[in-house]
């Protein structure tokens, strides 16, 4: 499997990264080089292997339903790029 420039553009859009036309050539080559590393996995027989999502065989721990968090909105708003009165602001989103 190897990627063409169009696919690279689509992936970039999905990942919200912009790739300029001058970069696309190089990016495509690099990504295909990396993907060629992955090809050898195809050699391995894994039909009856359980996929491993976690290194440890543990169950999810559940927390009690208790409100434990104080209102830190002022501190959080302080580090935001743009805020209004208590809101985070972004350019108008048209639905």
């Amino acid at each position, binding site marked *: 499997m190897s990627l063409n420039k169009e696919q690279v553009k689509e992936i970039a859009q999905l990942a919200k990264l912009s790739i300029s036309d001058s970069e696309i050539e190089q990016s495509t080559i690099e990504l295909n080089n990396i993907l060629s590393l992955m090809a050898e996995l195809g050699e391995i027989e894994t039909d009856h292997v359980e996929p491993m999502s976690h290194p440890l065989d*543990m169950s999810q721990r*559940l927390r009690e*339903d208790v409100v434990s968090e104080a209102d830190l909105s002022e501190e959080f708003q302080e580090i935001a790029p743009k805020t209004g*009165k208590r809101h985070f602001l972004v350019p108008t989103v048209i639905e």
Partner: protein
Amino acid sequence: MAWETVIGLEIHSQLNTKSKIFSGASTEYGAEPNTQACAVDLGLPGVLPVLNKEAVNMALRFGLAVNAKINQRSIFARKNYFYPDLPKGYQISQFEIPIVGKGAIGISTKEGGAKMVGITRAHLEEDAGKSIHDLYEDYSAIDLNRAGTPLLEIVSEPDMRSAREAVAYAKKIHALVQYIGICDGNMQEGSFRCDANVSIRKKDTEELGTRTELKNINSFKFLEKAINIEIERQQDILEDGDTVVQETRLYDAEKDETRSMRTKEEANDYRYFPDPDLLPVDIENELLTEIKNSLPELPTEKKNRFVSEFGLSDYDAENLTAQKPLADYYEAMLNDGAEAKVSANWVMGELSAALNKNQIDVQDSPISAKELSELVKRIGDDTISGKIAKDVFKAMWEGNGRVDDIIQNQGLKQMTDVGAIEGIIDGIIANNSEQVEQFKAGNTKLLGYFVGQVMKVTQGKANPKQVNQILNDKLS
């Protein structure tokens, strides 16, 4: 051409936990913007989710209430997409293995009768925040208080064949989640949201047509309208020989139309994968047994009991049990000694009408179950007539005191003194000799006239039964 409609619903039910599904921030509705969004809800770098036990228990309550298969090992997955009110750039949801698997629930409609609607699955996920577009010029405002509120997404099979059935199903689920205490059901505040997948196909064909997903529906009335509008729209398209586009459409209640929502050329590719920050959720048998035993009487069970125990009709029992608060109100009246059928009539009649008219939930009714039961009892013990009772009800609604005080103060107590009623009747007979003769000549319809005269003189307070009896005695 004859078309058949196929509808499936996706219901997002906000679980009424105190804290969020993955953080300790409060879920209370209506707080100042962003004051209930903690570091985890904001998706600050480095923060991690920890699952709320109560959210899991609530999902299990639902699963057991619809006799669904419970997946005793379920997995949380990330649904990846960018949106400004989705703080992490992904929503934590369940994908391949949801906590609740296949189940079913019974519905009934006048046209379609009784049927079972399949539930495909119900999974836990986190709600997103809110984007507000009309608050600042040139900016959308993001409020993340809602972000992380636990949701149970209940997905039905495409088993409904009309908007009515879809509404019946939605109402049934709406009643159920409130019965089992997992959701407040408030559609205005968005605690209970319905998306409808609608398609049509030629009658007697198997293959499903292309569906559209209707969003932004915040009442049962709009659900019915939106579906019907969409069915018509799809029929027009197909009958013109065109094809329906699979897309999400927004229902606009003001214009009463649906319109295409996503114009993005890019198809959504959510790139689901197991969330590495969360481990598999394992449910022990003991917990399932415990939750099963703690489930309250469910709507269908309650309805059947109302029929057998109180002698109500199926119809009345169904109506009374549709909403748990109403059923509770009704049962409280009975526990207080009110008669079952008269109580049922009052709850479904005067009380429901007044609540609807004033848009008040039964829990907030100005007349308590105990007070209404007193009123019903005063009818039963002949203190007042049913007709007078309606006036008393109005006075109670307006806050003019308790039943007996109103009856006392307004002098509404029924006249039961036989001697006094006889005296009044004697006077009327004496003053209406012509009518008396006609009656005696066989025009028995005139009895009503005499009763009317008596009520006029007594201002409706004479006991109608006694009046009838005395009149019959005196005129025969």
